[in-house]
C-alpha cells in the first residue's frame, strides 16, 4: 500500500515546522507579545499553506497512502518515523492547518504570551503528527504529546475552575492511553510472533498481515477503543469534555473541539477498522449504540445547560455520536459521511466557540440568562451566529447536513432501527440551538446588553474562511468526497476481506443498494 518515492519530505516538514515555530517563539524577547503573535501566526499560516499544498498535490482516485516519508528511528524495536496521508486523513490535516491560524487570530491570551503561543504551536505539531503517523509507536508518541500543551492551555489561560478541568482532562486521557499503550505493544509483539519477521510497529504491515488470533484482536481492539472513546468522547466517558471546553480559553476550545476530538474518531478508523477489521465488525453494535446514546443524550443534556459554552460542548457529544455511528455502520456512505462530518464539526463548532468567545470578551459572562436581545444591538454577529447554528443543526445547503445525511443514510443500510432513533437527534439539535438562540439574541436587550458592541472587522475576518467553507461544503462537497472515497472504499473492502478477518457470514452486512437500469433482473428487494 505504501508507495515509496523520493519527493520533498512534505509531511515531515509539516510536523516539524510548528515545532520550529515553538522554538523561535521561545527565543523571542519576553517583552514583545505582539511580535510573538506575529511569529506564531506566521508559522501557523506557513503550516496551513503547506497543508493546502499537500491537498493540491494529492492525487485523487488513489486509495493508498501518499507522500510517504519513511525513516528508521529506533530500529532495534522496529520503530520508525513513517508518515503518510490518504483520503481519510487528508482533510483532517487541512482542517488542522486552517483552524490553528484562525484560533490564534480569534482570541487573545491576555497574559504570558510566550508560553501560550509556544504551546499552541507544539499542539499543532502533535495533532498533525497523529493524523500523519503510520507507525503505531509514533502515533502513540504524538497522541500523548498533544496532551501536554492542552493541559497547560486550560490550566493557565482558562477560566474559573481551570485547574480542576485541566487535571480532569489529563487524567481521563491518561487513563485511556494506558490501555492503548498496553494494546499497542502487545499488538506489535503478537504480530511478530504470529507473522514472523522482525519486530515492527508499522501500521500497514501489521494491518495487512496481522497474524493475531481473532479473539485476541478483539481484546486489543478494546484497548485502543477505550483510549479513543475517552478522546471522542463517547458516553459514559464524556464528563471531562464539558469542563475542559467551558474552562479552556477560546483558542483552546476551538482546537479541542475542532481538531482534538477527531483524534479519537480518526483513531477508531485507523487503529480500529483498519487494524482490527474483524473486531470492529464484532463490536459494531456496541459502538453504534454508544454513538446513538451520544446523539440523543448529548442533545438532551445540552438543551438544559445554563452556560452557552457548556451547551456547545454538549452539542459536540451529540455530533461526535453521529461520527461514531457512521464509522461503525461499515458502509461507504456512513464512513464517508463520518470523515466529512469530522471536518464539518471542526468548522461549525469552532465557529460557535469563537462566537461565544466574542460574546464573553464583551460581557464577561457566558450565562444564557444574562444575555438578551443581542440581535438588536449586534445584527451582523447575530447573522453570523444564525448561519453557523443552521450549519450545526444540519440545514441542507450547509456543510453539516451533508455529513449527517450521509451518516444516517449509510447507517440505515446496516443498522436500520438505530438510525430511526439517531435521526430524531436532528429534531433535538434544532431544539437546543434555537432555544439558546432565542434566549440570547431575541427579545428586547436589557440594560446590561443594550451597549453590546457589534462585531469588529478583525473578528469578522476570522469568521470569513469558516463561513466560506461552511457554505462551500454544503453546496459542492464533491471535490472532498471524491478524494475521500477511494480510501474509504478500500477500507470497506479490507474489512470484508476474509484474509484479514471479517470472514463472518455477510461480512459487514453491507451491499450497495439499487436496481439495474433495465429492469427486474436485479436482486429482489426481499433478499435484504
Amino acid at each position, binding site marked *: 500500500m505504501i508507495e515509496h518515492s523520493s519527493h520533498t519530505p512534505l509531511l515531515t516538514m509539516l510536523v516539524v515546522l510548528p515545532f520550529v515555530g515553538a522554538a523561535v517563539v521561545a527565543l523571542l524577547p519576553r517583552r514583545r507579545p505582539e511580535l510573538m503573535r506575529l511569529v506564531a501566526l506566521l508559522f501557523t499560516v506557513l503550516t496551513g499553506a503547506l497543508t493546502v499544498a499537500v491537498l493540491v498535490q494529492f492525487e485523487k482516485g488513489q486509495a493508498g497512502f501518499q507522500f510517504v516519508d519513511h525513516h528508521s528511528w529506533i530500529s532495534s524495536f522496529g520503530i520508525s518515523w513513517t508518515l503518510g496521508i490518504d483520503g481519510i486523513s487528508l482533510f483532517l490535516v487541512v482542517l488542522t492547518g486552517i483552524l490553528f491560524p484562525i484560533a490564534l487570530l480569534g482570541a487573545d491570551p491576555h497574559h504570558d504570551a510566550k508560553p501560550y503561543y509556544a504551546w499552541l504551536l507544539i499542539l499543532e505539531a502533535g495533532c498533525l503528527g497523529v493524523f500523519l503517523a503510520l507507525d503505531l509507536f509514533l502515533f502513540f508518541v504524538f497522541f500523548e504529546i498533544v496532551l501536554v500543551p492542552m493541559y497547560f492551555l486550560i490550566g493557565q489561560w482558562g477560566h474559573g475552575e481551570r485547574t480542576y478541568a485541566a487535571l480532569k482532562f489529563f487524567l481521563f486521557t491518561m487513563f485511556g492511553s494506558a490501555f492503548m499503550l498496553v494494546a499497542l505493544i502487545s499488538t506489535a509483539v503478537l504480530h511478530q510472533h504470529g507473522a514472523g519477521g522482525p519486530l515492527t510497529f508499522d501500521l500497514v504491515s501489521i494491518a495487512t498481515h496481522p497474524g493475531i488470533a481473532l479473539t485476541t484482536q478483539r481484546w486489543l481492539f478494546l484497548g485502543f477503543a477505550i483510549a479513543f472513546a475517552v478522546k471522542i468522547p463517547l458516553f459514559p466517558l464524556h464528563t471531562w469534555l464539558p469542563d475542559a471546553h467551558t474552562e479552556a480559553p477560546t483558542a483552546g476550545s476551538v482546537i479541542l473541539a475542532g481538531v482534538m476530538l477527531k483524534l479519537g474518531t480518526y483513531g477508531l478508523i485507523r487503529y480500529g477498522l483498519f487494524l482490527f477489521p474483524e473486531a470492529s465488525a464484532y463490536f459494531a453494535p456496541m459502538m453504534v449504540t454508544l454513538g446513538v446514546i451520544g446523539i440523543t443524550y448529548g442533545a438532551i443534556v445540552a438543551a438544559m445547560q445554563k452556560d452557552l459554552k457548556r451547551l456547545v460542548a454538549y452539542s459536540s457529544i451529540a455530533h461526535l455520536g453521529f461520527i461514531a455511528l457512521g464509522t461503525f455502520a461499515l458502509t461507504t456512505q456512513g464512513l464517508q459521511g463520518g470523515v466529512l462530518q469530522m471536518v464539518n464539526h471542526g468548522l461549525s463548532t469552532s465557529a460557535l466557540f469563537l462566537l461565544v468567545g466574542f460574546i464573553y470578551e464583551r460581557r464577561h459572562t457566558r450565562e444564557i440568562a444574562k444575555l438578551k436581545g443581542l440581535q438588536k444591538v449586534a445584527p451582523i454577529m447575530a447573522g453570523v451566529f444564525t448561519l453557523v447554528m443552521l450549519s450545526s443543526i444540519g440545514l441542507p445547503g450547509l456543510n453539516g447536513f451533508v455529513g449527517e445525511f450521509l451518516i*444516517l443514510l449509510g447507517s440505515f443500510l446496516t443498522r436500520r432501527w438505530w438510525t430511526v432513533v439517531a435521526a430524531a437527534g436532528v429534531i433535538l439539535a434544532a431544539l437546543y440551538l434555537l432555544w439558546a438562540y432565542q434566549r440570547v439574541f431575541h427579545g428586547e436587550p436589557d440594560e446590561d446588553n443594550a451597549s453590546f458592541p457589534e462585531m469588529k472587522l478583525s473578528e469578522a475576518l476570522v469568521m470569513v474562511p469558516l463561513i466560506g467553507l461552511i457554505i462551500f461544503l454544503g453546496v459542492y462537497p464533491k471535490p472532498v468526497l471524491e478524494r475521500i472515497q477511494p480510501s474509504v472504499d478500500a477500507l470497506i473492502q479490507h474489512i470484508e476481506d476474509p484474509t484479514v478477518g471479517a470472514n463472518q457470514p455477510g461480512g459487514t452486512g453491507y451491499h450497495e443498494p439499487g436496481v439495474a437500469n433495465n429492469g427486474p433482473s436485479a436482486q429482489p428487494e426481499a433478499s435484504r
Partner: protein
Amino acid sequence: MLDLVWLIPALPLAGFLVLVFGGRRLGEPIAGWFATLMCGGAFAATVVVFIGLFNKSPDQRQFQQVLFDWLPVGGLKVQLGFLVDPLSIAMALFVTGIGTLIHLYSIGYMHGDPKFSKFFVYMNLFAFSMLMLVLGNNLLVTFLGWEGVGACSYFLVSFWFSNEANASAGKKAFITNRIGDWGFMLAMFLAFASVGTLTYFSNGSNVGLLDQGTLGHLTAYTATAIAALLFIGAVGKSAQLPLYIWLPDAMAGPTPVSALIHAATMVTSGVYLMVRISPVLAHGYTWLPATIATVGAITALFAATIAIAQNDIKKVLAYSTVSQLGYMFLAVGSGAYVAAIFHMITHAFFKALLFLGSGSVIHGMHDEQDMRKMGGLRKYMPVTAVTFIIGWLAIAGIFPFAGFWSKDEILLNAWAHGGSPLWKVLWFVGLVTALLTAYYMSRQVFMVFFGKENWREAATAGGEAEQSAEATAAEEHAGEEHVTVAVAPSRHDAHPEPHESAWTMLLPLVVLAALSTFGGLVNLPFSDSSRFLERWLAPVLETTTRRVDVPGVVQFALAAGTCLLCALAIVVAARVYLQHKLEPVEPELFAHGWYYDESVSAFVGGPGEEAFEQTAEFDKGVIDGAVNGVGTLVRATATRLRLAQTGYVRNYALGIAVGAFILIGLFLTRAVG
C-alpha cells in the same frame, strides 16, 4: 426554452445575495422593488418554460436539467437538478405569480419598518427555496427546498423578534416542522435502501424512483412505508393533526408572510409532495390513502370548529388555512390528485387575497387585529372591502367563484370513491366543514366590514379600556407590533379613522380578486375539453388518479345542494352577526382550540422539560459524580500511600513501566498460551 429552467430559482437567489450585502445601502423602497423584480423575473422565466413545455406533445412534456453532482457517494448519485413537467411548472407558475404580487404588496406594507431591506432578503430566499422544492428532480433537492422554506419561515415569523411571543412562534414552527422532517429523511433512506435512488424519473445517471420499472421492485410493504414516512413530513409542513399547532402561532409574522408562506405556498408543499410521489402511494396498501383522507377530513373539521370562535382576524384565517389544507389531503387520499392541485391553486388565490386584505385592514386600523373592535369598515376601505368580499364568496364555495369549483371536485371524489362506507362519512365531514367555512368567514366579514363601527367606542373609551384591550390582544399572542411611523397617526390619537391602503397594496388585492373570481375556469367540470388543468396534468397523474364515474345529474345535485347549504350558512351567520337576531355560538372549547395546543404546551413545558432536566441532573450527579467519586477515593487512599509520592518523575516512570509490563505479560501469556 426549457433549458432556461435554472433561471427560475436563480433570479430570487441572485436577489437574495445582492440584498444580503447591499440591501441596507439600497434602502427603502429600492430594495423592495429590486426583490419584486427578481421574483417577477422568475415568474417571467416560468412562463417562458411553460410555453416551451406547452408546445411539446403531451407525452414529451418532461425535461430534466442537471447542474452538477451534489452528493456522489458510492451508489448514491444525488445531483442538483431540475425536473420540468406539467406538475412542477403548474406549481412554479402560481408560486412565482403570487409571490411577485405579495412582494409588491410588501413594499407598501413594510413601509417605514427599520428592517425593510432585511424583510426582502428573507422573501427572496424564501422564493428561491420554494422553487427548489417544486422544481427539484429528486427527493433530496426537494428536501433542500423543504428545509429552506422552513428556515425562511423561522426567520420571518420571528421577524419582529424583540417581542418574545414572536420569537417563540418562530422557534415552535421550526421545531414542529423538524418532527415531520424526521419522517421525510427516513423515507429517503428507505427509498435508497430499497431501490438505490432518490431521483424521481430516470435520467442518464440515475434510475427513477417513480418509474414503473423501478416500482416493480418495491414490495407493497416498502412502498407503503416510504409513502407513510413522507406523509409524516407532509403533516408537519402542511399543518395537519397532530402537528398543526405551529401554524396559528406563525401568524406572529408580518401579514404578507402569512399570505405567501403560511397560506399560499409553503404549507401546500406537503400536498405537492404527496401528489409528486403518488405512484409510490398507489403502489402501496390501500389503508394508507384512507388514513391520509381521514387525517385530512378530521383536520378540516377540527380547524373549522376552532375558526368559528376566534376573534383575531388573522387567527380565523390561520385555522381556515389548516382546514382547507385538510381538504387537499382528503383529495389526495381519495386519489383525486388533480382536485388537490386545483384546490391548492384556487386556495392560493383566495387565501392570499384574504390574508392581504386582512393586512390592509390591520394597517388601516393602526395595528388592530381584534375583530370585535372593527366594524363598518367598508365605507373607509372600499377596495379592501370589495376584494375581501370576493375572497369570502370564493372560500365559502358560492357559485361561480373559484372555491366553488375546486371544493366541489373534492367532495364529489370523496362521495364517489366507493368501497367502504368510510368515504361517505368523509364526504359528510367535508360537507359539514364547507358549511362551517361559509359560516365563520361570513362572521368575519360581517364583524369587520359591516355593522357598528366599534372602533369609535374603543378609541373614545380612552386609556383604561385601551390598555385592557391590548392586554387581551397580547394574551392571544397576536403580537403584531408593526411599525407604521410614517403612514399612521399614533394609535393613541383620538378618533384614528381607518384609512385605505397605498396602491402597491391594493393592486395585488385587485389582481387576486380577479383570480379568485375566475380561477375556476382552469378546470370546469362540464366536459373533458373544459378540464384544462386535468388535461395539462394528465401526463404526470393519469396513471395514478382515481377515475370517478358519476352521472351528470348526481354531480349537479351535489354541487347545487352544497352551494345552497353554504348560502344558508351565510344567512344564519347574517342573522347572528349582522342582524343580531340569534345569539352567537362560540363555545370556550372552540375558542381554546379544543385545548389541544395548550395541552401540548403544558406537557412540553411540564413533564417534557422535567425529563430533560432530570437527564441533565443524572449527567451531573451520577455520571460525573462517579468520576469525582473515584477521584475522592483515590485521594483518600493516596494520603496513606503518600510515602510512595517521592515527587521524582523517574520513580513514577518506573511505576508506569512496571505496571505496563505486568499487563503486557498477562496479555502475552493469555494470547500465546
